[in-house]
């Protein structure tokens, strides 16, 4: 059976523009959540977000000119992909390139570009619409751009499953390699929806945190009593997945292994998760089954944990149900530090899961001052914790009732 390992990582988030910066900041309990200053948020119920300074976007990787021609979500995806590509250090010949592919998705894609071009069409007419508008907004264009940049001619696509996108992209890539349709995949998610229409839309859906505008760093607080919604973040996470023998043969450094992938649908509500948490439970169950591990072999859950009143407890209950007879289970939420990166969240969190396993330390769940309720699960409140982790589950759940889980572990 073909095994799938991880040989490259890349991330750009509100905590920094490399995996190294991110990881150091996470362990220092830093928060990337700030007051939004890029556009006027007067009258917005939520005025905070996890944003990335433009100065962190390296023009050597994507020039000013190319940044103008791509929506920000593509720019961020290219930055993270570039880091993962260099980290993995591969250079395919023509034949190999046909077996190397790209699956980088996004939850929303070029929302800001669509908004801006709508204004141009309305105010100035059709002649002012840029020929780059459509290719700058399409979600699969991150995969397209990355494949062009590195000459990768294998499978090329992009899932769009809201906040589960990044996890689906990794899981789908894992499945392709496992089923011998590819030998190497660059995969992950990117998002840049911290823009006027994005903030307005999620506010209207009553999804965002609206009680910490004066104290941004405290806004994202999964499982805490005072949580009031998620804090949006922007960024991208990208991994290089590779068939195990293929990675060994070229002497690649291996971060860990993707062992299982589960996915399910709630069939319940457009924005709310199913109340019994059954959808998330079944996604985890399917991933664990594929991994052929027993639950004793799993020590850690990298939670979806968005800091919403309803979702946090439903996920907690599902994890409790799964691990009810087990002790020493850890679960944290990286969103407490970077906010909710929507379609990029699962990919960035998979990167952090691998770093946690590699370094035997779990970043803290920030702002978890008073848990909503008691649990036997260690939610890693406010202080990072050393823990030997052999295997972990990373969860992502999205609007539309879409659920995805990965089992990630040591090889």
């Amino acid at each position, binding site marked *: 059976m073909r095994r799938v390992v991880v040989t490259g990582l890349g991330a750009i988030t509100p905590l920094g523009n490399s995996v190294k910066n991110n990881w150091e900041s996470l362990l220092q309990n830093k928060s990337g959540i700030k007051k939004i200053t890029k556009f006027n948020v007067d009258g917005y119920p939520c005025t905070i977000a996890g944003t990335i300074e433009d100065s962190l976007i390296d023009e050597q990787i994507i*020039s000013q000119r190319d940044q103008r021609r791509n929506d920000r979500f593509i720019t961020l995806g290219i930055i993270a992909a570039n880091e993962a590509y260099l980290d993995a250090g591969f250079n395919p010949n023509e034949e190999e390139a046909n077996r190397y592919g790209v699956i980088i998705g996004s939850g929303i894609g070029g929302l800001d570009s669509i908004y801006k071009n709508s204004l141009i069409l309305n105010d100035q007419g059709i*002649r*002012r619409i840029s*020929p*780059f508008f459509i290719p700058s907004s399409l979600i699969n264009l991150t995969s397209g751009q990355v494949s062009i940049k590195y000459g990768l001619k294998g499978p090329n696509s992009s899932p769009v499953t809201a906040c589960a996108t990044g996890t689906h992209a990794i899981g789908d890539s894992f499945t392709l390699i496992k089923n011998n349709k590819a030998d190497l995949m660059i995969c992950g998610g990117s998002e840049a929806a911290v823009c006027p229409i994005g903030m307005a839309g999620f506010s209207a859906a009553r999804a965002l945190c609206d009680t910490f505008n004066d104290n941004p760093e405290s806004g994202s607080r999964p499982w805490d009593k005072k949580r009031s919604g998620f804090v949006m973040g922007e960024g991208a996470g990208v991994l290089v997945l590779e068939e195990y023998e293929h990675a060994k043969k070229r002497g690649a450094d291996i971060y860990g292994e993707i062992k299982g992938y589960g996915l399910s649908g709630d069939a319940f509500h457009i924005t709310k998760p199913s109340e019994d948490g059954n959808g998330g439970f079944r996604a985890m169950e399917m991933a664990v089954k594929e991994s052929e591990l027993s639950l004793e072999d799993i020590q850690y859950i990298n939670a979806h944990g968005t800091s919403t009143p309803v979702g946090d407890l439903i996920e907690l209950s599902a994890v409790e149900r799964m691990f009810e007879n087990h002790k020493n289970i850890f679960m944290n939420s990286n969103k407490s530090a970077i906010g909710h990166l929507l379609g990029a969240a699962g990919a960035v969190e998979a990167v952090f899961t691998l770093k946690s396993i590699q370094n035997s330390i779990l970043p803290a769940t920030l702002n978890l001052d008073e848990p909503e309720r008691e649990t036997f699960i260690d939610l890693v409140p406010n202080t990072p914790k050393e823990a030997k982790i052999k295997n972990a589950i990373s969860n992502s759940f999205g609007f539309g009732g879409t659920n995805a889980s990965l089992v990630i572990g040591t090889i």
Partner: protein
Amino acid sequence: MSDIEERVKKIVVEHLGVDESKIQSDSKFIDDLGADSLDTVELVMAFEEEFGCEIPDDAAEKIVTMKDAVSFLSDNSN
């Protein structure tokens, strides 16, 4: 160099990301300066904006070189 030629050159440098020294009066946007069909549409839009004129599609199709652009804009700009 005429004022119009200089302004056209500036737009081409900005939009195509080419070195100014590579741009000659007979340089073709697509064959010599690396533009693709989308780039040329954007170039024409930028000319329209800079020179405050409208370049109809049939005229735009005939703007192949730097010289073509300068000559059209000399005759038609406001």
